[in-house]
């Protein structure tokens, strides 16, 4: 906090003393109170990426290096060309801090914000995804309360706007108990023309600046500075910063915006999110190389007597700013009228490169448009936490329970069990595009009506692994999310990420961030996946213990499936078929669910990622797809491959006869073999007839593939070839445990 004297008032700002001096020097005068507030917001961590920018530059330049990337980082959303004249936009963002204190409205407005970002690219939002983190549910009313209302907030907002929530992810871990994570992602689809029509820049002098949507109120002033601090510091005092969502108005904004774009007269478009009007106007003009003259009196306010500071910084929801060609103003306003959306012509752009805002005759803002976006960066120090050495040396305890007992416990554990309780509440089918629905595949698959193309999208990461080795963990997140879309028959096309970390001023927290970004950057380069956007949320810390959350770089991957017959789903289909595993299992139990659920152990060495191996596996799978040799596919995730096989049995209530005698190249213990979380493995169902052909291809690709069993009609999973002999698991009991965990816990 720095105290700055403006006129008679003294204002507390988050700017540093040297930043204030820079502003004074650049302006050659003292900033007005409104200007100072604008700098304060725009240069907050949340808007300016002060701490993170130097690290994010590790990502390769997606627009330059990938010809199908139309918009990369720096825009409101990443956009890729998916062929047939279509553009796909997508983006992920965090809404952690508001959701931790007001789960319902916090999550709802998170959805509201991400929808606006997609809309800004000129395309229709067609899908949402929601990776979430909470404290454990069991015996914890606070976590249950957060979980229940976050899900309800997402459901009520997404459902009402008519955008299906097609996927997501939930993990429960003590570290998220008071600082839950609510990340939300949105996908938009349109033609390449649509996208070109709506840059988030004002390039032309003389265009009209139009504000459309909800009224401007005192709510949420300084929401972004709130998001740029830890909850401990501010949450009580800053609580009014939480916004009330209005999905109905948002739905009208979507329709009015898309129809306005269709007129061809919209030349620029920007949502009002963090920083409100000041942020939107300075980005539009600053990035577009123009200036603007704005009459603040035109802005429709909700409350009387709002001053310029409040109006320029209000983060009231559901507003959009349009840059409109002069000759099309009337037509665009007619569209807004049709939808009965409030709107106001605030002023015009000019070539002054200066943003001027008048309150009556008073010039309250008079800033070089570019100044606000020229935020300084802050070099942060990194330090690997000392506790890691100790944690990484943990070894697997002697099993305290029988293997079958452990399998039942794992399948019922909060992180592995079914998340149906969540997705039943989401309208995941509106839009008539959802082909692979929640629960039927590793990713959500949407058709593109009028083509034979399909979009697959998945989001996730493993916070426990990232805690132990953020570099490898971040890579794993990418391999995992790609594996999910591949399992459904897609080729991964591009990635966006949402970095959730602790206080960057603490060297240990910043180390996690730096390592995770390095991991993502390396992995994406090696796997040839462009990073087209992202978001950073710092200051995620536990109020009480003052410790950071486990590092959580959420990864979202979108992929494309060419042709309906190439869509693959997760459930086993037919008894008598072979069960094959792709990839070896190593003793990689560090940070596993097995450790955590059975031994309450956080430690050990987590799985490592070998991108070369992974890439050939993916190529091999694509080859099998091409030859129509795979009937079901599921990538191996938490709990190990035995859990994967169980999950594949549930839907059609099949069983499996497994023999693992020859699938143990490293002489692993039974528990290591069954529960290890080695990255990049897949379980596939194939017709026995094709076995030789598959093995031949495996040899050609130099891929490790092994038949480990056959599907049986009787819903029992028999496991032979273990060191401890034979094991028999009741697949129906397993299914029941899998399905009932969360409903039982949530019957508060």
């Amino acid at each position, binding site marked *: 906090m720095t105290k700055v004297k403006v006129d008679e008032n003294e204002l507390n700002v988050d700017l540093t003393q040297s930043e204030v001096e820079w502003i004074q020097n650049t302006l050659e005068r003292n900033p007005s109170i409104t200007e100072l507030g604008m700098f304060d917001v725009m240069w907050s961590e949340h808007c300016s990426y002060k701490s993170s920018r130097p690290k994010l530059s590790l990502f390769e330049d997606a627009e330059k290096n990938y010809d199908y990337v139309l918009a990369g980082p720096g825009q409101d959303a990443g956009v890729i060309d998916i062929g047939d004249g279509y553009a796909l936009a997508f983006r992920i963002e965090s809404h952690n801090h508001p959701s931790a*204190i007001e789960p319902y409205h916090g999550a709802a407005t998170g959805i509201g914000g991400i929808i606006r970002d997609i809309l800004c690219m000129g395309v229709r939002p067609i899908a949402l995804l929601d990776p979430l983190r909470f404290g454990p549910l069991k015996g914890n*009313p606070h976590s249950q*309360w957060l979980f229940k209302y976050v899900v309800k907030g997402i459901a009520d907002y997404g459902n009402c706007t008519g955008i299906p929530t097609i996927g997501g992810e939930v993990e429960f871990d003590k570290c998220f108990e008071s600082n839950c994570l609510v990340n939300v992602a949105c996908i938009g689809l349109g033609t390449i023309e649509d996208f070109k029509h709506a840059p988030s820049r004002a390039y032309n002098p003389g265009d009209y600046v139009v504000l459309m949507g909800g009224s401007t109120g*005192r709510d949420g002033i300084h929401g972004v500075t709130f998001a740029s601090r830890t909850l401990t510091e501010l949450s009580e005092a800053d609580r*009014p910063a*939480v916004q*009330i*969502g*209005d999905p109905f*108005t948002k739905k009208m904004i979507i329709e009015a915006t898309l129809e306005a774009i269709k007129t061809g007269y919209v030349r620029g478009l920007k949502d009002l999110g963090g920083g409100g009007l000041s942020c939107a106007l300075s980005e539009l003009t600053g990035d577009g190389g123009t200036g603007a003259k704005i009459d603040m009196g035109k802005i429709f306010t909700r409350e009387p007597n709002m001053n310029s500071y409040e109006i320029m910084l209000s983060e009231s929801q559901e507003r959009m700013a349009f840059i409109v060609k002069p000759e099309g103003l009337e037509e665009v306003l007619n569209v807004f009228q049709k939808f009965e959306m409030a709107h106001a012509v605030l002023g015009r752009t000019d070539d002054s490169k200066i943003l001027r805002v008048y309150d009556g005759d008073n010039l309250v803002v008079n800033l070089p448009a570019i100044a606000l976006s020229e935020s300084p960066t802050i070099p942060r120090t990194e330090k690997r936490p000392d506790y890691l050495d100790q944690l990484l040396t943990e070894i697997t305890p002697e099993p305290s329970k029988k293997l079958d007992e452990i399998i039942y416990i794992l399948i019922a554990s909060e992180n592995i069990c079914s998340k149906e309780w969540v997705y039943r509440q989401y309208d995941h089918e509106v839009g008539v595009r959802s082909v692979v629905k929640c629960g039927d595949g590793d990713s959500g698959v949407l058709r593109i009506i009028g083509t034979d193309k399909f979009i697959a999208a998945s989001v996730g990461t493993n916070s426990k692994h990232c805690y132990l080795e953020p570099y490898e963990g971040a890579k794993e997140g990418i391999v995992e999310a790609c594996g999910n879309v591949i399992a459904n028959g897609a080729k991964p096309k591009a990635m966006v990420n949402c970095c959730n970390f602790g206080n960057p001023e603490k060297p240990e927290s910043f180390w996690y961030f730096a390592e995770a970004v390095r991991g993502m950057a390396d992995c994406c380069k090696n796997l040839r996946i462009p990073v087209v956007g992202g978001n950073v949320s710092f200051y995620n810390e536990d109020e009480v213990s003052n410790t950071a959350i486990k590092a959580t770089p959420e990864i979202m991957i979108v992929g494309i499936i060419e042709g309906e017959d190439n869509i693959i789903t997760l459930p086993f289909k037919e008894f008598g078929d072979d069960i094959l595993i792709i990839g070896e299992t190593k003793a990689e139990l560090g940070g596993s669910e097995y450790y955590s659920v059975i031994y309450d152990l956080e430690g050990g060495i987590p799985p490592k990622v070998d991108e070369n191996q992974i890439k050939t596996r993916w190529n091999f799978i694509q080859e099998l797809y091409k030859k129509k040799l795979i009937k079901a596919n599921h990538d191996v995730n938490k709990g190990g491959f035995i859990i994967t096989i169980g999950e594949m049995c549930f839907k059609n209530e099949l069983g499996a006869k497994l023999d693992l005698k020859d699938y143990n190249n490293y002489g692993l213990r039974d528990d290591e073999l069954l529960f290890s979380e080695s990255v990049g493995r897949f379980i596939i169902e194939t017709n026995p007839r094709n076995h030789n052909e598959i093995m031949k291809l495996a040899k050609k690709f130099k891929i490790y593939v092994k038949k480990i069993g056959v599907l049986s009609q009787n819903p029992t999973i028999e496991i032979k070839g273990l060191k401890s002999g034979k094991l028999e698991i009741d697949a129906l009991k397993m299914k029941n445990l899998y399905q009932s965990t969360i409903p039982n816990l949530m019957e508060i």
Partner: protein
Amino acid sequence: MIYSEFIIEVVLENKPAARDPVGETIRRDLLAKKGYDMVSNVRSGQYLRFYLSAENEKKAEEIIEELLNKLRIFNPVTQNFKILKLQKES
């Protein structure tokens, strides 16, 4: 101790500074369009009526206040609650 039956009525609503899209929409899209423009504002909320036994009315109110807070039936971040003081029926 003698316990009696009490009825406590409570209204939860968004804080005055927070928006109330439900009330706004009722006013704008229903009342105003149907000619009820003498209505300048509508606010909506949730009503709850509790039937409980307690030593006296004050105690009954305390119990309700406590459970509203403890069980998170309302969230103080965005909502207010008030216990309704109704006129006694004559």
